[in-house]
């Protein structure tokens, strides 16, 4: 008695918890001796033998190591797909990025070669997945993903002369690289489909292309007077100190390219190049330049960039002339959509279109001003006269987060989604931005890893809800049929038979085709798929429940309950249902696996979840083409592996549950 009084409420709760979860044996072991004082033997030793059936099943399940592992994997998978999306706030379904399409798994997008780090950086440039760099010793370097999709081209096939000679300038476009050696010779490699670097017959005859100027191709440029070499999507430009502009590339990618290109004078047989250009750069669709007036962005299209804003996040714009107020535009830097203007007094302004996910320019101190700005595909990296580095602009890949290590920098460089900072000797301080993709990217340039998580959420949700619909319909109808028998049974069984003789896949195709024509929203469509799978599959649960009920109905405890006058519904739900639940549990697991398969199959065929909404099924669609399946192996291998792993684990759980629940199967073990 004395001992019992001492037991406080927490101890009591703990003891109950131990009894509840681990059995009376452990309760005795851990709490028994104190509670019972000296009389250890007062409780019989066989207390462990008395276990409820549920506990027995649980214990036997725990003995199966493989099944425990499977549970672990499935729980992990569920956690990842349902909690994971909260950790990727920048993910959205319709994301498209033309410069990042079909990239294999890599983490090398930002790995500057060691040799370049020691030699010092002269220049770094990048447009898509590969980055070119020239070291202070004039050595050419290349890193990132160099294979160009399925074209069979690889920009890593660098001409031997480029490696041998000292390079002065190098720039990278979407699928080509140009380099100019210190002796003036011009090199280009990669894709030449749109006349990116070579003057061959096809290029010269194509009216949509502006071929490389002869003077550039023949290597007759004076390297010491080149001001800037830059590449756009499928176009390139070389700007000389005297304002002469050499520009070439695909007119379909840059509609105003022709405005800048040289005109051929038939009378003299000479080319007339554009002159008087101070700075030039490419956005995604336009060539932008500063002419010698330095008071506007010249595109050849009137008033395109006439509204300027000083903040990236604030929509307030002012007119270009008001903003300049007598000052002059020194340089322009362009991202895909907008332009950064650097004025002669160090102020900066922006013009163009602005995406939503954007980081604003920081407020500088009074005596601090930007001395240089570099631009990537969406972001800007600026350096001030105090050596501080600031990043702003598009932030989808977190490319504007400058590491704290970067201090007292002398020069900054921007890749497509990366930034590099160097000190006054050109030594790399640090690089930051997009490192790569562990699962690669898909045909729209989206990160497959993120899509696997987001797609998993949809696939799992569809699977779970479909199974819940199946269970609710099947079990309740099975209960009714099994318990009441007679005409109710007859009716329900006939309906179930009709449902189970519906050819599943063809019927779903029809329903899906119908819903396509009804202009549903993506979510309505998702509910529709869940409902279709659930409603067509319920007879399975109905048969099982009914069969179990027929067995249970004849048992003594039900007869006893009936004779005591317990209400029929209460008998059905309180006395019989618990006995059929274990069997339903097994089938639920297996049905979940099969509805995962159904959803993925439907989506794979293009009748389930529709692009751009991801699902594990429609992410594999591209693999139905044998060539694509080999060339873009990463686009299906990872997703397929995760899908199969999940299904295997769920099935293992189901099989093990069936084994441990069925007393017959355990006897002959």
């Amino acid at each position, binding site marked *: 008695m004395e001992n019992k009084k001492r037991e406080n409420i927490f101890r009591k709760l703990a003891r109950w918890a131990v009894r509840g979860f681990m059995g009376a044996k452990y309760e005795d072991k851990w709490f028994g001796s104190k509670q019972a004082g000296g009389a250890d033997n007062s409780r019989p030793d066989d207390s462990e033998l008395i276990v409820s059936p549920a506990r027995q099943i649980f214990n036997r399940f725990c003995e199966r190591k493989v099944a425990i592992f499977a549970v672990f994997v499935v729980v992990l998978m569920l956690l990842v797909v349902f909690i994971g999306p909260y950790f990727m706030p920048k993910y959205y379904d319709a994301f498209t990025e033309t410069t990042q399409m079909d990239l294999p798994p890599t983490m090398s997008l930002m790995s500057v070669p060691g040799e370049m780090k020691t030699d010092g950086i002269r220049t770094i440039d990048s447009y898509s997945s590969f980055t070119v760099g020239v070291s202070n010793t004039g050595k050419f370097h290349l890193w990132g993903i160099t294979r160009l999709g399925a074209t069979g081209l690889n920009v890593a096939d660098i001409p031997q002369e480029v490696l041998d000679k000292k390079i002065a300038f190098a720039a990278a476009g979407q699928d080509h690289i140009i380099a100019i050696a210190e002796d003036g010779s011009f090199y280009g490699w990669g894709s030449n489909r749109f006349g990116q670097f070579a003057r061959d017959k096809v290029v010269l005859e194509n009216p949509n292309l502006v071929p490389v100027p002869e003077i550039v191709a023949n290597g007759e440029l004076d390297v010491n007077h080149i001001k800037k070499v830059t590449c756009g999507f499928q176009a390139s430009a070389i700007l000389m100190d005297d304002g002469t502009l050499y520009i070439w590339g695909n007119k379909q990618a840059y509609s105003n390219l022709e405005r800048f290109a040289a005109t051929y004078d038939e009378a003299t047989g000479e080319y007339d190049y554009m002159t008087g250009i101070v700075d030039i750069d490419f956005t995604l669709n336009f060539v932008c330049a500063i002419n010698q007036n330095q008071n506007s962005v010249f595109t050849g299209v009137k008033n395109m960039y006439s509204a300027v804003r000083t903040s990236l996040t604030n929509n307030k714009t002012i007119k270009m002339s008001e903003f300049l107020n007598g000052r002059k535009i020194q340089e322009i830097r362009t991202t895909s959509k907008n332009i950064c203007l650097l004025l002669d007094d160090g102020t900066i302004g922006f013009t163009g279109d602005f995406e939503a996910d954007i980081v604003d320019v920081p407020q500088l101190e009074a005596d601090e001003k930007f001395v240089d700005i570099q631009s990537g595909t969406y972001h800007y990296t600026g350096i001030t006269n105090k050596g501080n580095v600031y990043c702003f602009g598009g932030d989808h890949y977190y490319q504007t987060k400058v590491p704290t290590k970067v201090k007292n920098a002398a020069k900054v460089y921007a890749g497509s989604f990366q930034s590099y900072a160097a000190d006054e000797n050109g030594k790399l301080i640090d690089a930051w931005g997009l490192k790569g993709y562990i699962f690669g990217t898909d045909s729209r340039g989206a990160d497959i890893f993120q899509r696997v998580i987001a797609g998993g959420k949809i696939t799992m949700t569809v699977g779970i809800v479909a199974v819940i619909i199946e269970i609710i319909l099947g079990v309740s109808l099975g209960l009714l049929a099994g318990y009441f028998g007679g005409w109710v049974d007859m009716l329900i069984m006939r309906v179930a*038979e*009709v449902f189970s*003789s*519906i*050819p599943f*896949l*063809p*019927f779903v*195709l*029809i*329903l*899906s*085709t*119908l819903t396509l*024509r009804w202009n549903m929203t993506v979510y309505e469509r998702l509910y529709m798929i869940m409902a279709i799978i659930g409603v067509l599959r319920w007879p399975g649960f109905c048969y099982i429940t009914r069969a179990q009920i027929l067995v249970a109905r004849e048992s003594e405890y039900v007869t006893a309950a009936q004779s005591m006058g317990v209400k029929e519904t209460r008998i059905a739900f309180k006395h019989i249902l618990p006995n059929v639940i274990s069997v339903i549990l097994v089938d639920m697991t297996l049905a979940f*696996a099969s509805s995962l*398969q159904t959803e*993925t*199959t439907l989506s*794979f*065929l*293009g*009748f389930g979840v529709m692009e751009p909404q991801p699902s594990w*099924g429609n992410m*594999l669609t591209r*693999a*139905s083409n*044998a*060539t694509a*399946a*080999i060339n873009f*192996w990463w686009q*299906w291998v990872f997703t*397929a592996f995760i*899908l*199969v792993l999940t*299904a*295997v684990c*769920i*099935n*293992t759980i189901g*099989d093990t549950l069936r084994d441990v629940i069925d007393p017959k199967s355990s006897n*002959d073990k």
Partner: protein
Amino acid sequence: MGRYILKRLVYMVLVFILLTFVLYSFYQLMPVNRAYQDAKNDVSTMKRLTEEEKKHKFDELYEMYQRKYGTDVPEVWKRYLRWLGVYPNYYGEYKGLLTGDVGYSYDHRMDVIKLVGPYIRNSFLIGLFTQIAVLGVTIPLGIKCAVKKNSRFDHGVQIFSLFGYSTPSFITYIIFIVLFCSILKIFPVSGMKTAGTNYTGMKAVLDTLWHIALPTICLIYSNLAGTTRICRASMIDALSLDCIRTARAKGLTEKSVIYSHAWRNAIIPMVSIIVGSFFATISGAMILETMFGFKGMGLLMLNAARNADYDLIMFLEVMYTFLGLFSNLVIDLTYGLVDPRVRISK
């Protein structure tokens, strides 16, 4: 037995009518109007008519076609009966499913009934071939696993079949295609014959065999897992029966115990699976046919669904429903064949 079959047949017809009526109602929801389409086509071929005349002519033709196709009445049930071919249309003709008039495929530009023949034959051939191969492999495998339960061989097969039936079939096909067509380059990727050739006789047969080899292997593989599992499970159940113990006690050889006593008990639960999967393969392995470009019912159905070729969809649906119901009937009858108890009680 005769009465039982008759009962099942009547039931089958009822369910068939019910299902096709539901399908027909769905069909009515679709934005399709054959009469409108035909009338429009006809009017567009007529030249030298003013707008007014065209409109007048169109109305005339539209009404004519509506009457011809039996859609001139608003009631769905009347249209359905006409579609079945048991209710006369405006001209007093019986034209419908039962008379073999099931519409026109706008996509293939021919009558549906003429179109589907070769496709069904292809599906049937590959289905039959596959099913025989599957049974030939799985039954001995399942029996061996059941007899040598928990042996290393059994565990190996168990793991293999777990992966087999957990993997959605299209992933299996992708892996097979990549492995055999792209890496090993043993089989052609798709089609039924080598393009640009015109083989005859033995060569043509061999060429076709070469082309359908991989689809067949894929089908066999994806059916293997499920059937082996079921065969093993029912064989294990059968081996634990009392009659087996008795047979062994009598001193019968192990071979006769397994193949004569246990097997006859094990086959009963397997019947529905075997027959069911047989009909499933015949009615077209839709995904397989899509991926291999194999001209079977499944591919036809899928393309019809993609191109909204409604008459064709409707007819194929009817075919699928019929095959499904027919397979149920065959399952019930086969039960009677393999299970003496069913034979006696019915």
